[in-house]
């Protein structure tokens, strides 16, 4: 069997259904072998999008996403997407072609040392030098990508190894000796944490993306209800706890809700789960909840106490840890009564929900996003781009289920949302998928319209079009005396015509009513749709906590 065939067979054994990619000279044999396989190949127009699609596929489904590119520039184009996946702990496997082994190191045509380039961004990377090595490499890449804290893996396959033939064996055995056991919750720690939580008068839960990865949103909800503890999330945690739940406080952080950012300071015990206390979540770290006892649950021991000093820790996947905690707490808290803390939470929530917008403008981002939430089914998947659009989405679009709010949190990668939406739709064709976009970000990967249309993976892009690199402009308005530098994008392209030129549906809306109509059309017709929503370029995302300030020091 040829190396290329062995690769494809190994991918089939991993139950890969879809690969996002774009071929080139150094990977043609693999593309040839793919013709004889049931694996679906989705052709992209830029490899960065292939990586984002694999990532979106993974986040929507929990399965490992796969992307593929040729050597050299194809491979380096994947890198942005790999780092994006790494920072948000997304399980991905990237396959790259490489020049033939005798040419490696000679600066051959389209040679890039992708293993070294991608090394800091991958949990596992390997260049098989023989056909026999291919099946175990594939097995290990998939095993490690989804193991513990998920992340990207890379297989770099020299062209001669794709062509060579050999007898190959497929086995599930993992050769790697350096795989460490997955930590399991420690009983004494569980006991101690249960004690701290049951004694807390004002418990507060902060949930991050780790709880989504662990598929533990159900357990989280049980715990919150047991403790009557309010739950806020980081950006990455959005969706893990239904944001219409009476205990939901929405998102905290730089662009968190004012109420959540205030109330977290009143907590006496803060339980952080699968959340790494990033600077965007905590604001000025020294002043983040200084009075509270802090408990951290994380599967990655290096995250424990990395940023925030803590009082107790459980190194474990969130699911078993929460199961055990719930068990330990059920007895202790059987008759937990509503306290003044519950009352306070309720009051604060009412204040925030009854806040009426007094803007006279017709199309404001909050109105648009609330309307979107109202119109689309709860289970719809929403991705975002990066910038103001992303922060508006996190503030005003209530995520109700895990894996339905997909965003580039750690890397803040413009151009992520649209290909990620396509990846998500490929994984979940049964669900409507929307990308809440900024004009600047959408332009970065807008060529994925070709993929969406031709491969029949319809998604809807809602462009909050301010003709600006809006978030940068906002910083320039607030912190640089309104001196705009390189943020005006002008009114090009015409997004409606752009969409149409790709064979997609383009709709420009001028009112909420038109917006609703456009959304309803897109829900009904299931064709790739771009909805251009012109908004005021001067609009700020507020509230905002400036960099280096505590969460209490909110602007707006």
């Amino acid at each position: 069997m040829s190396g290329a065939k062995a690769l494809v067979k190994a991918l089939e054994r991993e139950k890969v259904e879809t690969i996002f990619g774009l071929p080139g000279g150094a990977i043609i044999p693999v593309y040839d072998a793919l013709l004889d396989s049931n694996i679906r190949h989705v052709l992209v127009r830029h490899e960065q999008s292939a990586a984002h699609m694999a990532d979106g596929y993974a986040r929507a489904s929990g399965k490992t996403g796969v992307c593929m590119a040729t050597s050299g520039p194809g491979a380096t184009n994947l890198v942005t997407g790999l780092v994006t996946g790494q920072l948000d702990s997304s399980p991905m496997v990237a396959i790259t072609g490489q020049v033939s082994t005798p040419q490696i190191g000679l600066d051959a045509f389209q040679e890039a040392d992708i293993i070294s380039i991608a090394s800091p961004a991958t949990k596992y990377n390997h260049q098989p030098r023989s056909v026999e090595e291919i099946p175990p490499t594939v097995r290990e890449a998939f095993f490690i990508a989804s193991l513990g804290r998920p992340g990207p893996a890379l297989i770099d396959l020299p062209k001669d190894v794709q062509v060579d033939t050999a007898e190959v064996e497929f086995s599930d055995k993992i050769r790697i000796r350096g795989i460490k056991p997955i930590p399991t919750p420690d009983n004494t720690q569980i006991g101690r944490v249960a004690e701290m939580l049951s004694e807390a008068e004002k418990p507060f839960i902060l949930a991050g993306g780790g709880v989504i990865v662990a598929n533990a949103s159900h357990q989280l909800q049980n715990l919150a209800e047991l403790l009557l503890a309010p739950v806020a999330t980081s950006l990455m945690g959005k969706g893990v706890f239904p944001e219409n739940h009476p205990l939901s406080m929405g998102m905290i952080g730089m662009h968190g809700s004012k109420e959540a950012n205030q109330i977290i300071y009143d907590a006496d015990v803060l339980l952080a789960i699968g959340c790494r206390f990033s600077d965007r979540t905590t604001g000025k770290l020294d002043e983040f909840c200084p009075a509270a006892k802090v408990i951290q649950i994380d599967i990655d021991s290096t995250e424990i106490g990395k940023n925030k000093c803590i009082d107790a820790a459980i190194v474990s996947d969130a699911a078993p840890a929460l199961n055990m905690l719930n068990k330990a707490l059920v007895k202790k808290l059987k008759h937990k009564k509503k306290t003044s803390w519950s009352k306070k939470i309720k009051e604060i929530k009412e204040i925030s929900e009854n806040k009426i917008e007094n803007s006279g403008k017709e199309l404001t981002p909050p109105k648009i996003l609330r309307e979107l939430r109202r119109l689309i089914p709860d289970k719809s998947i929403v991705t975002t781009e990066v910038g103001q659009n992303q922060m508006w989405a996190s503030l005003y679009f209530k995520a109700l289920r895990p894996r339905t709010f997909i965003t580039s949190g750690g890397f803040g990668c413009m151009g992520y949302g649209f290909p990620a939406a396509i990846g998500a739709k490929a994984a979940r064709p049964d669900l409507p998928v929307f990308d809440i976009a900024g004009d600047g970000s959408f332009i970065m990967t807008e060529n994925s319209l070709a993929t969406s249309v031709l491969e029949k993976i319809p998604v809807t892009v809602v462009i909050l079009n301010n003709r600006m690199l809006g978030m940068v402009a906002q910083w320039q308005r607030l912190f640089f005396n309104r001196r705009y530098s390189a943020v005006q994008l002008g009114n090009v392209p015409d997004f409606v015509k752009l969409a149409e030129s790709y064979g997609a549906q383009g709709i420009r809306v001028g009112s909420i009513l038109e917006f609703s109509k456009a959304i309803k059309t897109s829900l009904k017709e299931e064709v790739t749709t771009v909805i251009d929503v012109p908004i005021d370029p001067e609009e700020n995302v507020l509230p905002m906590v400036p960099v280096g300030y505590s969460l209490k020091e909110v602007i707006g």
Partner: protein
Amino acid sequence: MTKTYIISALVEHKPGVLYKISNMFWRRGFNIESVAIGTAEQEDLARITITIEGDEKDAEQFVGHLEKLIDVLKATRLDPKKAVIRELALVKLKAKDAKMRSDIFHYVDVFRGRIVDVSPETATVEIVGSKDKIDAFISLTKSFGLVEVARTGETALIRGPESVRLDE
């Protein structure tokens, strides 16, 4: 409080591993003092001894990040009181006249070093010991004229039957 920590790790002995490990140091901004690496008790394993400057938290993070690398099989912080720690240094000194030579020989004697090479102008000394001992030797003999220094970096093993091995 910053101090020096010694970390011993057992790693895959294959190309690219040192790159991946040093990549991690750089990316995470650890303050590395020295790295010593060589084949371990098994031919396909290398033992790497790393000394870092930092506080307790740095040391813990360092071990954690090392262990996250799949090419690292084991990583442990060594307690200096319970470990044998050695570094080897070759120190080439100017030694032009008899007086200089005899002075150098004297120091070499005190430090239990060895003269491993002599030329009409220089003497090369081999010193084995802790980093501090080598530092002290160099600072005392500097006045002769330091031509070249090559140091291996500290390498270490736990004292007694305890060990950092693959099978335990």
